[in-house]
């Protein structure tokens, strides 16, 4: 009888004291099958739920995004063996899967080699390719239960450290028979994507409990999560240390872990479960937040001004704003005349007053961006690019004069030359004539319409106006987003200038992706057709760099070249504003690049408010 009573009390206690947080989603994840998620069905919503389920050998630290060991015990050792470069990684011995199986080198080797095989032999696509590039990755090999060697054709921070070494590791015991069975079917990839994974063992902190389609997903915290109790300390001198008193695991790197601490975090989870509730519109999610049904809203676009204003008046709701890791930009088709003339591009860039646009035209809802690495990505951002940007810090009159001078320098003439006095255009330019005597008729600026992005639509109209004032015949053509994509990427470069945006990863290898001449084919990412041998050489060195400081130095140089050559004129981006209930949850930090949703709401660190 006593036992029954005790069990009953325990059950009651679990219900009474169990801490559950409710989070709002604006769209439902598509699949929790990792093959599908990192294959064709990568959505940010799936990512929010998958994030706390998966783990890789290395990961990013909170807030500062230092590259730190997760399943690995230390940073990798790199050596050249013959023509190949070998990363030797020691694994942690204190990690277990959610089914109690010990994590080992077998899992790592099987995952990496299988993904490569599926990419090469079966065309596994999507984001798996971000992790395993068959042009670089050769194979993974088990040395002992807790040591692996990973072979690459060339050393590369982008392809190895920030690529393969960060990929999610899958359990060999669970997946090997499933994948082998799938390979015997007529369509192996579809079979793999279709597997029900509700019983999949995971390394992450939260196990799927229930997915009620269309309504909610509930995940439960693992009591045996390997990282629980682990203390992550970021020191102001750049050092990082990880100590887990429960398992005895210790690691430190990037200098001596001493002196003033920037941040100290003890890993939980501190909540028993998380319920992701599906709200199909922003107003419903905001009402639910006001009503206290949910504590935090996931929305990659952030709150709009009106929504933020509404929530600012609500008791116990706190608003936070963070810069984002992306930019919105204008791209010149350098295969076409006159966009292939550097001074012409610089003249256009000089006319664009980013500060005026963001503060006055967009009413402070956006912030200016100058370089192809966003300023929020502090470690990789080169602050000098601002000063290299033509017209930086100048008045509108001086910007116009500079643009006219640049055009004259390149040999441009006008039928009617523009005249600037002070900040005013006293005579509008007309009939721009190129250095070769050819009259420039019209240049089309493709930009998304106001329905898709009113900010870019507005800015495109301003660019048109400023350019026309000095006689550059730009015509803004506000069209459907898909039409821009079609004309830029599907058709053979059927554009003069277009305006779009990018969301980026932390490691700035996109600089090479967007501007290396070998990426200038139809459908590839160098849509500008930028071709600079000096840049290519540096970009190759950057991609092959295995030392982070060297890579940073190269990245800075690349940014400086681009700030002057201007295949892109980076213009602005918007901060992401989020809201949460302070009477329900406490986040360990609030300032982080791209907001708290970029770290999946810090599920292992968030606490229920008392």
């Amino acid at each position: 009888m006593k036992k029954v009573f005790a069990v009953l009390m325990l059950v009651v206690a679990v219900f009474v004291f169990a801490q559950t947080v409710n989070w709002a989603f604006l769209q439902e994840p598509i699949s929790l099958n990792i093959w599908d998620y990192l294959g064709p069905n990568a959505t940010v919503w799936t990512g929010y739920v998958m994030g706390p389920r998966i783990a890789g050998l290395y990961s990013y630290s909170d807030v500062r995004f230092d590259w730190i060991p997760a399943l690995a015990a230390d940073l990798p050792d790199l050596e050249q063996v013959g023509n190949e470069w070998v990363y030797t990684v020691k694994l942690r011995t204190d990690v277990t899967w959610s089914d109690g199986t010990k994590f080992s080198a077998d899992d790592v080797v099987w995952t990496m080699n299988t993904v490569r095989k599926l990419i090469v032999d079966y065309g596994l696509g999507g984001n798996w390719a971000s992790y395993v590039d068959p042009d670089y990755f050769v194979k993974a090999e088990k040395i002992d239960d807790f040591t692996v060697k990973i072979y690459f054709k060339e050393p590369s921070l982008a392809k190895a450290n920030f690529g393969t070494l960060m990929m999610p590791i899958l359990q060999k015991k669970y997946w090997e028979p499933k994948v082998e069975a799938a390979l015997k079917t007529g369509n192996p990839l579809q079979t793999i994507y279709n597997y029900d994974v509700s019983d999949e063992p995971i390394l992450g902190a939260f196990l799927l409990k229930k997915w009620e389609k269309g309504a909610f997903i509930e995940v439960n915290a693992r009591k045996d999560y390997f990282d629980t109790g682990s203390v992550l300390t970021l020191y102001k001198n750049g050092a990082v240390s990880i100590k887990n008193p429960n398992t005895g695991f210790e690691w430190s790197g990037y200098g001596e872990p001493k002196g003033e601490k920037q941040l100290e975090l003890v890993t939980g989870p501190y909540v028993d479960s998380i319920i992701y509730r599906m709200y199909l519109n922003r107003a419903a999610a905001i009402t639910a937040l006001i009503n206290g049904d949910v504590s935090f809203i996931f929305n990659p676009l952030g709150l709009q001004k009106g929504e933020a204003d509404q929530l600012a008046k609500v008791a116990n709701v706190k608003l936070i704003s963070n810069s984002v890791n992306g930019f919105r930009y204008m791209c010149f088709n350098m295969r076409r005349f006159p966009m292939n003339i550097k001074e012409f591009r610089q003249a256009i860039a000089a006319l664009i007053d980013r500060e005026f646009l963001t503060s006055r035209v967009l009413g402070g809802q956006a912030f200016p961006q100058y370089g192809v690495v966003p300023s929020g990505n502090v470690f990789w951002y080169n602050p000098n690019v601002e000063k290299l940007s033509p017209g930086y810090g100048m008045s509108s009159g001086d910007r116009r004069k500079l643009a006219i001078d640049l055009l004259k320098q390149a040999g441009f003439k006008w039928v009617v030359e523009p005249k600037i006095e002070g900040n005013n255009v006293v005579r509008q330019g007309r009939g721009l004539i190129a250095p070769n005597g050819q009259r420039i008729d019209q240049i089309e600026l493709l930009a998304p319409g106001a329905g898709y992005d009113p900010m870019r639509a507005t800015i495109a109209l301003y660019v048109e106006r400023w350019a026309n004032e000095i006689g550059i015949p730009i015509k803004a053509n506000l069209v459907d987003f898909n039409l821009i994509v079609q004309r830029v990427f599907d058709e053979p470069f059927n554009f003069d200038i277009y305006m779009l945006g990018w969301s980026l990863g932390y490691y700035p290898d996109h600089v090479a992706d967007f501007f290396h001449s070998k990426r200038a084919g139809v459908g590839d990412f160098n849509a500008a057709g930028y071709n600079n041998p000096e840049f290519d050489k540096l970009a190759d060195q950057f991609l092959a760099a295995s030392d982070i400081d060297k890579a940073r130095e190269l990245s800075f140089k690349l940014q400086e070249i681009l700030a002057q050559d201007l295949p892109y004129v980076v213009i602005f981006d918007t901060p992401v504003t989020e809201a949460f209930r302070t009477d329900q949850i406490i986040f360990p930090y609030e300032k982080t690049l791209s907001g708290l949703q970029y770290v999946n709401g810090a599920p292992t660190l968030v606490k229920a408010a008392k």
Partner: protein
Amino acid sequence: MLRFLSKRVVQIVILLFIYVTIVFWLMEALPGSFLDKYLMNPKITPEIRENLKRQFGFDKPVLTRYLYYMKNFLVLDLGVSFSYFPKKVTSIIFERLPRTVFLFVTSTLVSYAFGYTLGKRSAWRRGKVIDQVTTFTGIVFWTIFLPLLAIFNIWLFGVILGILPLNQFIDPNLWRNVSFSAQDLFLKLLLNAFIFLIVFLTIMIISRRLKTINAKRILLYVSLIGTIIISISIWILSGRAIYAWDIIKHMVLPVFTLTLYSFAGSMLVMRDTMLDVIREDYITTAKAKGLPDKVVRDKHAARNALLPLMTNFVISLGFTISGGIITETMFSWPGLGRAYLEALSQQDTPLLIGLLVFTGVFVLIAHLVADILYAFLDPRIRY
């Protein structure tokens, strides 16, 4: 009649093929494709995109794809969705169908019942206060911006009064620890409603053979109340009543909103037809015979005025399958309407065509049923 029916079925099949062809080519005419989303990821090289193109079948010429689609369509295979790859379109439709049918059939029924009642009363008292108030109110709600009405109702009943759930179709806290899914329950609720309909129709047929009005009434009320009591008892005994109630509770606000928004349509149709009918000689005769007003209105006028409303109702039932993008979005009730929006915004061609075809089939069937019903309700009509 049989000849007419077979002719209509052949027409429907031909129409369906034309419809599918138009939908397919319209989708093709849209700029861009589903794969464009991969253009926003610089890690996905053109070679990987080519692989994805092959997986989704974009490597084949559009005519080949069309012929392939039509071939599959003939065996009722609507293909695989792109955005839910590799889920079959039919499985997505059948996952969402019960939620849509339950919400929209209920709201259509309530709205028509409400419109019918108000329409006949306002026509009977033409020019009086009740006529002016109902017509004015109906028109106001009919022309209101639906999302605004939805937000207002959510705010009023969910936030200010706190008597109805704000959003979604279930309360996650209640459903966390149950072993069955909401989908199961929706199917059971639909089955329950279907049984109720069968019972109702059977009683109507039986009651025609009874001689006195009282006997008819007693049979009707006893049977209906009995069915309701039996249904509720079964739900309670199965332990699922609380969950069924949760769904019904969540349905009140969307049904209320949809009824407010759309009752004017059926009310005005009923009112106009009634106004024509009450000018007929047989109504004057009925009144002259000294029959009570209520009997003349309900038995003589309203029954004869029902025909256009019935046609509208049956065709509306066909359209309920398509759900409602705005209602489903505003009340977080993910059904087929929401699936339309997702398919369109993601350029998920197979899913969008599948949804349009599925709706089209039901609408065409509804037209056929309306034709048959005409002959049934009005003996003067012969095919």
